[in-house]
């Protein structure tokens, strides 16, 4: 299993599943539905948030939270 936190800048992936319940609902509502493609565009220094380009906007998520997001690297 791969999680979002592991992907490096520039790589693309596909959303699979989100394990944290509250996080899941929030991210689903913001368009991170299973099967949706994204690109990792930024990672903040010192283990800060990750930014992904998904359904034509940039979304940033904390690195810890990105660990509970399962993805497939494309």
């Amino acid at each position, binding site marked *: 299993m791969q999680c979002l936190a592991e992907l490096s800048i520039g790589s693309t992936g596909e959303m699979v599943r989100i394990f944290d319940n509250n996080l*899941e609902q929030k991210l*689903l*509502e913001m368009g991170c*539905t299973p099967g949706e493609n994204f690109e990792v565009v*930024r990672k*903040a220094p010192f283990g800060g948030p990750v930014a992904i380009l998904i359904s034509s906007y*940039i*979304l*940033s*998520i904390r690195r810890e939270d990105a660990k509970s997001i399962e993805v497939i690297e494309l």
Partner: protein
Amino acid sequence: MSNQLFKIALAGNPNSGKTTLFNALTGLKQKVGNYPGITVEKKTGTIKLSNDSKAIAIDLPGTYSLFSKSIDEEVAQQILCNKDNRDYPDITLVVADASNLRRSIFLLTQIIDLKMNVVLALNMVDIATKKGLIVDVNLLSKKLGIPVVAINARKGKGIEVLKKTVINSLGKSPDYPFLDVGKLFKGAIQKANIIRNVENNYASFMALCKQKLSGEIENRCALNQLCKSEDIIPERAQAKETVNRYSLIDKLVKETVKQGEPIGKYMITKRLDDLLIHPFYGYIIFLLILFVIFQVVFSWATYPMDLIDGLFVDIQMFVSQALPKGLLNDLVVNGILAGLGGILIFVPQIAFLFAFIAFLEDTGYMARVSFITDKLLRNVGLNGRSIIPLLSGAACAVPAIMSTRTISSWKERIITILVTPLMSCSARLPVYTLIIALIIPAEDYFGFNLQGIVMMSFYMIGFVAAILVALLLKYTIKSKEHSYYIMEMPSYKIPDWKTVGYTIFEKVKVFLFDAGKIIIAVSIVLWFMSSFSPGDNFEKIEKKWKGHENAEFNINADKLEASYAGILGKMIEPAIKPLGFDWKIGISLITSFAAREVFVGTMSTIYSVGDSNVKSIQTRLSELKNPDTGEAFFTPAVGISLMLFYAFAMQCMTTIVIVYRETNHWKWPFIQFVYMGFLAYFSSLIAYQLLS
């Protein structure tokens, strides 16, 4: 609908241009307040829709969905889902970002499913075009079954058409739901409708999913039972519904939006981000911006501030001569006018700080600041957005605390508010300057001016204390909410100057009218305390000095001693003696509560007693002898102790009032006053006992 007032709610995602549209529709006819009991900002305004119809518009907090996860979202949910809510709209205007249609019509489709009367304002069509996206507005309207109007909120395009559409759509509601939850969860929804005694599938679905719709407490039990018997797990049902909704939206977007080639300009955001969130340059640029803000709020603001100060001195002079001498004269001049001047003096700093914040927010840069500082500041219980209030606290805590509204996490916002007044603000500067000049020799050490080093150390002490207290509060304040950081990074935009202007106007207005009332009241109390005394003490003083040289000086000083403030100062002397303070400093501590810089004035009045020569306050204080030892009264120990007290104590009624306004509770200013008082007292005590 002639002359009838109806209600319009503006809903939409954050960054959808909702507030810009609200400003364009209402102009300056806005009212800003809080929702009862919570600190979510409530903005309402009047819209003139046509010659004979007006509407009240309410700007709902930005939200991505009707399912609430924060107080802001709960406000939007409660208003839209409850027909009995006093803000329930006759019509809802959903603002959507055309360049990001998929995500921004999610909320719209939920509102359609509530069977609400709704109009879609499709904003930012110009940005969509740059991205190469062409939206078929007519087809979108047909497919959704609601009116859709393309607008450009910034340029004010399409506003008139939008107003007409709103008038024409009144009283109509969508014929069919976007997503039929009744079909998706067969049986359960109908039964929930029966329990709730309404015919609204989507609202019943929300109630089933444990959304706290008001007036539903008595149904909770029955709904929970229904979930069990129908095998519905609320979290799963909600996720299923969201995924199904998005697959319908995807279909709709495919049919109505054509993807062409993006026009070059769109790349600007990427290029700017390469620089602005660069692991090294990103921080350097941010520090530079902070430096500029600090400089402007600290130094530029002094010009208008001096102007206001001078103006009030003139007005006070004029009024004191125009009115007959007596109590009323004194109350107006030294109570009311002094209080009013003390409020207006903050306006330039508030205006300058909010000009910057609105500018940074509107360009999209603020989101980047959070992105690069989130992790660092979260380690000490703060938030990426705490950095602006914290640093502008070094100029003045009042605008700084007002700017904490951009921090979405409640706990991180409270911590920021509680520690910001520890930063050495500009009102402490005159106190530091006076005392440093008294106790620190103006010598150079290793090429550095010693007085300057001490001054800087006091700024550092404030900053370090703020960080340490934040860290302590991080582990003591309990909060149920898990702080998520899920944030959209909007594309960079040239700021909309109107929005910046509105923000400044609104913040100044809120400060003047909301905080102003309480500040005037406290000023009058302080005036009363320093200008009245029990019995006929004042008359005796006047008799005593009659005909004496420099009588006025001595009378004023003696009167202050005999006044209620003086009595209080003497009363607290035993408590402050271990800190090296006498009752005269005690009086100054009390009067400084109006504002710290009053310290210098009070000291100069009270120490002038019995001295017939006019001297500067500094010479006077340096000549002062300690009656017990015969040595100079202001030893380094007393000076350092006094400076530490001013560094930590919460001696600013304006800050206290603003903290109350921003937290909507007297509990927080009280906690702040007590903890800062403790910090001040014990650090002064330790310093004095060690040094003397």
